[in-house]
């Protein structure tokens, strides 16, 4: 990374035209983090009971499955693909784990391991169909969304499984020491660090962005597009399965409708976090801030006796505003760029912003 000041490069990389501090502070991720901080501070001071010790605990427990599934989902969406089957994978994993413990006397670690393998297989099927067969991911994962849910229904029918071992349930509900952080924060932080490392600091991660910007160009510059996508879907499957085990232990219940609808909450959070649905843009910090912002808003609104209808409206409006702001930003930037070029006496080459994928 270098700060370029030479005017010659200005037209090549629009984003690098500004000094480092501007690039670090004035971007969408920072705006999202700032918004999160503003919302949290506001709620902490203004919303009754929000400052209570349990608020953060419940908030993190509620958002934990979404935080987990949003990590691989970010990478999948950055490549320009999507995975709608995550909530069904979560449900299937909860059902498999519950069934093995309840009906077949497995210990939790053994059952969870089987569930993770199921998650890998679920991801593998998605990955093979999308990356190697070349089918559109939207269609494939709508199909597997129904398929994995269907398998779960086939496994347990209409009955509900409960009665998980008490010490494992207690472990999931435990706090870290005497803090208000639940224990599940530890795997979330570890996984978030790993995924951030993978996306932002490895050649694999650069490949993920390149695929999102231009899969063909990525292929010709040596990125194994197929393998990358396959790996991402498998990661998505296995993390969803892990979230399924958490879900089962937290609620002590596995049903055929466990986790229904979570996939849209995950995708909404990822998009709110600044990831472009067309791929190639976004980062994990923005996504984590996006998920937590949804958590803070829902928690604060609930504490004010607001119904779930209003909560969903607020989050929906926020999501639309965030997408509009991104679009507007690009529009304004391209207009400004054009104005600057026309006012300059020396004609600059017109290739400019083409190096960045502009959605419009």
């Amino acid at each position: 990374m270098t700060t370029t000041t030479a005017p010659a490069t200005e037209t090549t990389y629009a984003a690098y035209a500004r000094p480092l501090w501007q690039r670090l502070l004035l971007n969408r991720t920072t705006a999202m983090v700032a918004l999160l901080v503003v919302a949290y501070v506001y709620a902490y001071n203004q919303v009754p009971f929000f400052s209570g010790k349990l608020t953060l605990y419940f908030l993190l427990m509620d958002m934990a499955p979404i935080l987990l599934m949003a990590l691989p989902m970010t990478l999948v969406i950055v490549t320009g693909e999507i995975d709608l089957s995550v909530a069904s994978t979560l449900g299937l994993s909860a059902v498999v784990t519950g069934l093995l413990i309840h009906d077949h006397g497995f210990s939790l670690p053994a059952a969870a391991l089987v569930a993770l393998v199921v998650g890998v297989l679920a991801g593998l099927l998605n990955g093979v169909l999308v990356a190697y067969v070349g089918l559109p991911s939207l269609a494939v994962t709508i199909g597997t969304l129904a398929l994995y849910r269907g398998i779960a229904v086939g496994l347990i029918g209409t009955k509900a499984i409960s009665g998980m071992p008490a010490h494992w349930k207690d472990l999931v509900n435990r706090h870290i020491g005497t803090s208000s952080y639940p224990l599940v924060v530890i795997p979330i932080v570890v996984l978030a660090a790993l995924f951030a490392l993978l996306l932002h600091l490895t050649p694999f991660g650069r490949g993920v962005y390149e695929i999102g910007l231009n899969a063909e160009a990525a292929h010709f510059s040596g990125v194994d597009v197929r393998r990358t996508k396959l790996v991402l879907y498998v990661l998505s499957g296995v993390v969803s399965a892990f979230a399924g085990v958490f879900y089962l232990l937290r609620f002590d219940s596995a049903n055929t409708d466990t986790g229904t609808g979570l996939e849209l909450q995950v995708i909404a959070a990822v998009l709110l976090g600044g990831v472009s649905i067309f791929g190639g843009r976004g980062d994990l910090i923005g996504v984590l801030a996006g998920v937590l912002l949804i958590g803070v808003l829902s928690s604060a609104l609930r504490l004010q006796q607001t119904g779930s209808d209003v909560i969903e409206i607020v989050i929906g409006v926020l999501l639309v505003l965030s997408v509009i702001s991104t679009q507007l930003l690009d529009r304004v930037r391209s207009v400004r760029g054009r104005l600057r070029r026309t006012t300059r006496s020396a004609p600059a080459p017109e290739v400019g912003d083409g190096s960045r994928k502009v959605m419009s």
Partner: protein
Amino acid sequence: MKWNSPRFAAAAAVALSASLVLAGCGSGSSSTAGDGSSTGGGGGDTTVTFIPKNLGNPYFDTSDKGGETAVKEFGGTYAQVGPQTATPDGQVPFINTAAQQGIKAIVISADDASAPCDALKQAMSAGTKVVTFDSDTSADCRNVFVNQATADGIAKVEVDMIAKQIGDSGEIAILSASANATNQNAWIALMKKDLAANHPNIKLDGVVYGNDDDQTSFDKTSALLQQYPNLKGIISPTTVGIAAAARYLSKSQYKGKVALTGLGTPDQMRSFVKDGTVQEFALWNPEDLGYLAAYAAQALVDGTISGPGDSFKAGKLGNYTVGGDGSILLGKPFVFDKSNIDQFHF
């Protein structure tokens, strides 16, 4: 130039609009809820939060309306919150929130018998009383369960209704849900017992199963009438079955000749009661159910009841006693007919 950078402007716009949304919600909220220090009228600090299975469900709108009436009667503070769709875990955040706010009592119809359990236990250990109604959780996750009807009560009212309508003699049949539906099978067994013991002139021709599917129930009704030409009455102890059977009868030559009764909801049955296809049918009154649940909550909060054997007065409904398993029975099923059906909308 730095401050009018478009990127900054847009970010600021997002932040501003979001904070406006937040602020708007802040000012519109009811600040009375959860405010334990406010003492309005007598017992004004009894905060009761109703958590239905999901919002926008006419059945729970009716029951929670009854709850609201009761809470107002005893001068408490009423609130209704809940998830948008009925998923097993959807109620948990709302239970947690109520516990954080120090709400005195939660009145909940559980989406799942076990998923809200831990949250309810936490709420109880924080001092919140928990009343379940309509759908119970495991017994250790609530203080009392307000039960809408017993199997005996349902079976008896259905037999009584059909006996009255066919003059206590003749052939009848039962159109049930699925062959392995637990509730329906229990009721049918009790109905058979009641018929044998108290109605010797009524002959039960058979039980058919519509699988709680509208079309199947419709077809089964048609088949019943052809198979048993002397049929005088049909009992359908399921809301889907009775509505489908009524639709068939209302369009057929049997309208008004073959009696139909069972368990139904007023909205589904209104037109059939008005056109004379159905004279009366039963269910419980959800408004009374919510009303009783709210009074049970208050009785728990002020210590009038704490376990089996204790009694309390539930406003206009009179006195109730907590049963052995911590359940409070609303009473006999409620019979809907032409004279009262327009008072109900669920």
